[in-house]
């Protein structure tokens, strides 16, 4: 009983012990906050990666792909049993994307991915990363007539708070396309009639463009908009083999206006594509996105054909939306196109049968299905020399391992903070033992044993650890749950941006408090506090009662 009483009294009367409490508290709070933020970032990153990639990817080793995806999907369904929820074929090839900005051509290396717009959203969160609300509901590779988001639809609570973060998107779509075509037309006219231009009164360029637009609309030539002037590319997926063979002879015919016609870019579009937003924009320091091209602009893409050896072919495409997964690696690399169009352009239809080839099949499993088990089943069912089957974690293995390693190293380093607090407790406890030597002698003269004396100091260490960890837990949770408010406060006080959305592509610092991790942190902190009190406790226990009583 005396141990409890003295522990409590020492805790209340020895103010130096508060230093121990404070150091344990700060260590625990720091670890909780850092782990919560790291877990939040890791979770955000993993959910993004998983949202982009399907659960399983069944792919060919060759860029030319494998034939007959329908047969392969049936075989996959048979091999995987009832665990498959959805599948979609894709074709992915490296390509070069080129577009003009202020008269200069910019060329970027991209991954050109053909997707089936009707099924691709079944296997990933692809649809939710698009910028037009209608496309988020159901993707269509036709240009929309405006209404693109002028703010980041994935940033909760950001819409309209400080004005649009993407003001340029207000005119995107057909209005932007018509405006651009009108400008180009005017420019060509001016260039063609340079000699006569001096005679005409000069008008501001915007008035001239308005005049051209008014003339276009006055003729009743409504833009096709979602009426799909080029014919929906998805139609080509249901083309007859004969049509596919015809398309093979002229791979660009189906995606162009009628043969022999001159295309009017103010009313028609090329094959639609969805590039990653990072390819077409950058974010300035105010968090406003600046665009190099917009939906409605045309770009050129050069990619290899499926034959051997592959030949480079180029064509013009119209941007119909942007893809923003918040993973810069993907957002600045991926360009999506209708799979049938890409198959035709690359010559991936069999000339005899019209059966298409694909590079890979993306598979989504039913909730609760074990990814690795299904992957192993598919690996057994298909020859490894021809096909690779991987889970989304396998595909991002090095990245996920690096994040795990980073968290582990950070935790070790942070735990050293608590270890340093432990050394503080050790030193302070030795001091308290010296200070309390006479009390130890008194207790021994009253019949207290060495174990009891050691118990006082071990209990004291336990008390300090529990109080420090308890207060640290409360502080850590309070900081974690209010971290965005704290960030705002710090930014307001210092005038410096603490968390720059242009770097992280998040508007809020994500946090996840894992109870298991918190329990480990608290157990570790209390364990270190008790461990640090062992040596002083042993020293106290070994004191000779007579010498202790004579201690001055």
């Amino acid at each position, binding site marked *: 009983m005396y141990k409890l009483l003295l522990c409590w009294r020492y805790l209340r*009367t020895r103010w130096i012990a508060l230093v121990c409490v404070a150091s344990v508290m700060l260590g625990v709070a720091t670890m909780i906050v850092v782990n919560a933020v790291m877990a939040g970032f890791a979770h955000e990153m993993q959910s993004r990666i998983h949202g982009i990639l399907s659960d399983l990817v069944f792919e060919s080793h060759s860029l030319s792909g494998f034939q007959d995806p329908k047969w392969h999907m049936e075989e996959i369904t048979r091999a995987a049993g009832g665990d498959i929820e959805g599948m979609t074929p894709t074709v992915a090839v490296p390509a070069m994307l080129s577009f003009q900005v202020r008269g200069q051509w910019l060329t970027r290396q991209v991954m050109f991915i053909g997707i089936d717009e009707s099924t691709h959203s079944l296997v990933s969160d692809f649809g939710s990363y698009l910028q037009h609300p209608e496309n988020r509901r159901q993707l269509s590779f036709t240009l929309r007539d405006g209404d693109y988001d002028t703010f980041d639809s994935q940033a909760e609570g950001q819409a309209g708070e400080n004005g649009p973060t993407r003001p340029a998107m207000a005119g995107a779509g057909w209005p932007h396309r018509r405006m651009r075509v009108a400008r180009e037309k005017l420019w060509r006219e001016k260039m063609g009639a340079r000699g006569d231009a001096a005679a005409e009164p000069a008008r501001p360029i915007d008035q001239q463009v308005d005049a051209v637009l008014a003339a276009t609309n006055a003729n009743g030539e409504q833009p096709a908009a979602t009426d799909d002037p080029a014919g929906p590319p998805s139609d080509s997926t249901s083309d007859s083999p004969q049509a596919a063979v015809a398309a093979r002879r002229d791979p660009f015919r189906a995606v162009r206006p009628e043969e022999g016609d001159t295309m009017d870019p103010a009313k028609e579009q090329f094959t639609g594509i969805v590039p990653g937003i990072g390819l077409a924009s950058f974010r300035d320091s105010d968090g406003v996105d600046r665009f190099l091209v917009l939906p409605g602009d045309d770009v050129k893409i050069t990619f290899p054909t499926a034959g051997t050896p592959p030949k480079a072919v180029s064509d013009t495409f119209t941007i119909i939306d942007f893809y923003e997964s918040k993973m810069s690696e993907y957002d600045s690399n991926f360009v999506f196109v209708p799979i049938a169009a890409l198959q035709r352009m690359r010559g991936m239809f069999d000339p005899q049968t019209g059966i298409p080839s694909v590079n890979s099949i993306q598979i989504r499993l039913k909730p609760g299905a074990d990814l690795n088990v299904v992957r192993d089943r598919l690996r057994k069912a298909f020859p490894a020399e021809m096909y690779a089957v991987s889970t989304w974690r396998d595909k991002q293995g090095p990245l996920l391992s690096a994040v795990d390693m980073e968290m582990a190293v950070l935790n070790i380093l942070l735990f050293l903070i608590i270890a340093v607090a432990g050394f503080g407790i050790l030193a302070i406890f030795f001091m308290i033992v010296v200070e309390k030597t006479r009390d130890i002698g008194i207790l021994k003269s009253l019949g207290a044993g060495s174990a009891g004396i050691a118990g006082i100091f071990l209990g004291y260490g336990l008390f300090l650890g529990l109080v420090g960890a308890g207060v640290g837990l409360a502080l850590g949770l309070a900081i974690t749950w209010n971290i965005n408010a704290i960030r705002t406060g710090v930014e307001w006080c210092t005038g410096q941006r603490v968390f720059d959305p242009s770097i992280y592509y998040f508007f809020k610092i994500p946090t996840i408090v894992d109870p298991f991790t918190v329990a480990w942190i608290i157990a570790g902190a209390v364990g270190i506090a008790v461990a640090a009190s062992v040596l002083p406790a042993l020293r106290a226990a070994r004191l000779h009662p007579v010498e202790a009583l004579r201690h001055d």
Partner: protein
Amino acid sequence: MTDDAMLRVRDVRKSYRSGGGMLEVLRGVDFAIEPGGFAAVIGQSGSGKSTLLHLMGLLDAPDSGEVHLDGVRIDNLPATRRDRLRNTAIGMVFQSYHLLPELNALENVLAPLMVRHSVMEWMRVRASARERARGLLDRFGLGGRLHHKPRQLSGGEMQRVAIARALVTEPSVLLADEPTGNLDEASGAGILDALCELNRRDGLSIVLVTHDAAIARRAARIVRLAAGRVADA
């Protein structure tokens, strides 16, 4: 010496390391206190009287010789049993009072009982223990000072608290080491009166160590130590 001694030391020797050599403090001392006896041990500083008291109180172990309590040798018992005996059978009072500064007067008196009992046992005996401690403090005129910390008490009051603490376990023998050494004359006389009353009224065996012959004369028997030996008894 009598055969019915309560506490007896027989031919005890004790040396301490001092500088480069050994200092022999006790050189074969025989001493006993009978039940209800009151003995004073006197001698000059360094004569070994406090060392003798520490050996009798099991705070130290002799190099040779034996210590008996109620006819049972106790100096060679395991540490835990010696701790237990110190708590239950022997009460000790020191010149410097040796109260625990974090505890108030009542808690200091209860300290030996808290050492004896576990938390669960303490919950059971707490009320009766507090009652007994209050009674003892009342008896020594400290009924109004129960919740005062030692630093708020005078020297005489602290020593009375120390005597109450020594008596709360109802020991067989009380060992007092210069109990009036730090007190003024009046306070010292009060403490001596209290000890004499305990011996006379309660029949408590008392061994009083002092260097003052006048104080020693209050005891029934005087034992003089000189150069580590009993000079006369």
